[in-house]
């Protein structure tokens, strides 16, 4: 079973995976050499990978995928066995909403019908209208998903995301059939 974390650079995908993973996440971070260097020292150039052990029930693989359109092909790698997706937004960045829009433009068609949670990371002191604006973007892309505030560094926040995804997953026939076929 897999859970995908999507979002623009700096939105907290790697951090969220690290907070949940039972092992040190495998990352593909390299030093930033462009304008992004003003915001963060490193960025993910391929995908992140982490894992949660589910004992005899298997394991939950955690994948971090960049939100930009040029990386859309990576979604095909994680699609088989995908249980849900978490879209991360950097709520502290003035271009957090643009980042969400780019992620939705890239992935919305693939996310429809999947359990999906939008997590506003670094949300302390964020613009109160951001959550509302995110909800509007989701509606424009015909996505039904909860929008929650998180601090991706905190395991309890990351666990709350997983709880929401699993609660939604309980009622998702499409994923259920796919998983049962794969077993």
């Amino acid at each position, binding site marked *: *079973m897999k859970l995908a974390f999507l979002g623009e650079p700096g939105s907290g995908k790697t951090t969220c995976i690290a907070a949940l993973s039972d092992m040190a996440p495998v990352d593909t971070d390299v030093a930033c050499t462009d304008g992004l260097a003003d915001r963060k020292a490193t960025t993910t150039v391929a995908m992140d990978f982490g894992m*949660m*052990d*589910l*004992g005899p*029930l298997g394991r*939950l693989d955690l994948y971090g995928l960049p939100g930009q359109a040029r990386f859309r092909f990576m979604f095909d790698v994680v699609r088989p066995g995908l249980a849900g997706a978490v879209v991360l937004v950097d709520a502290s960045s003035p271009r957090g909403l643009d980042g969400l829009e780019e992620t939705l433009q890239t992935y919305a068609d693939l996310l*429809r*019908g999947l*359990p999906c949670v939008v997590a506003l990371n670094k949300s302390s002191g964020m613009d109160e209208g951001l*959550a*509302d604006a995110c*909800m509007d973007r*989701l*509606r*424009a892309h*015909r*996505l*039904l*998903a*909860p*929008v*929650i505030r998180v601090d991706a560094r905190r395991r309890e926040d990351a*666990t709350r995301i*997983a*709880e*929401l995804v*699993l*609660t*939604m*997953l*309980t*009622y*998702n*026939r*499409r994923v*259920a*059939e796919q*998983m*049962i076929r794969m077993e």
Partner: protein
Amino acid sequence: MPPTLGLACAGFSDSDRDSLCATLARLEPYLRARWQLVDDSQCAALCLVNLDAGVDAACHHARRVGCAERPREFAAGTLHRPLRVPQLLALLTETGRALAEDGREARGVDCGPAPSAVQLLVWPLDLEGASRTCLHVLSALTFAPADPVTLAARTGEDVAAVERELERLMHGGLVVRAAGGGLAMPESAAPPASWRGLVKGWGRRLGLAL
């Protein structure tokens, strides 16, 4: 002999119906059931509703799917109009399968008024302190509209508790009641019963009480 299922279309022009009839004939080799266009007043397994024509939602068919020239302006699951063949093929395949699983055939479907289904428009912005019932009701409605009794059965909650949650959500404008059963979506059938146990097991391993 494949079962014959009735397909009604409300608010469609004669030319739309002729076009749909021709498309159904072309799709027949790809479908397990034989779909036949029936009059809107007749009992049908599925009804396509032209939302641009402002057709009243109080249609008596249990399974209804909206169609519109601009589907994005309507609820999730609305099809493009004029109908696109791949979308129609997917819808008929899924509906035929769901009906077969329900053990019903279109001719035998009870055409009486369906219980009042509820459709989720948007998740609440504030989930802090949301009850377990509320989260489960919202999660179930995310993938398909449902009436309170169906929701209670799917979530394992009391019907009264589900109705209270729905009232609250309706008061906040987050859900709407769709008279006559609401829009049937391709994912309208529930997952197998064993699935919930499996997901709960995953949750337990993660320390979650789902």
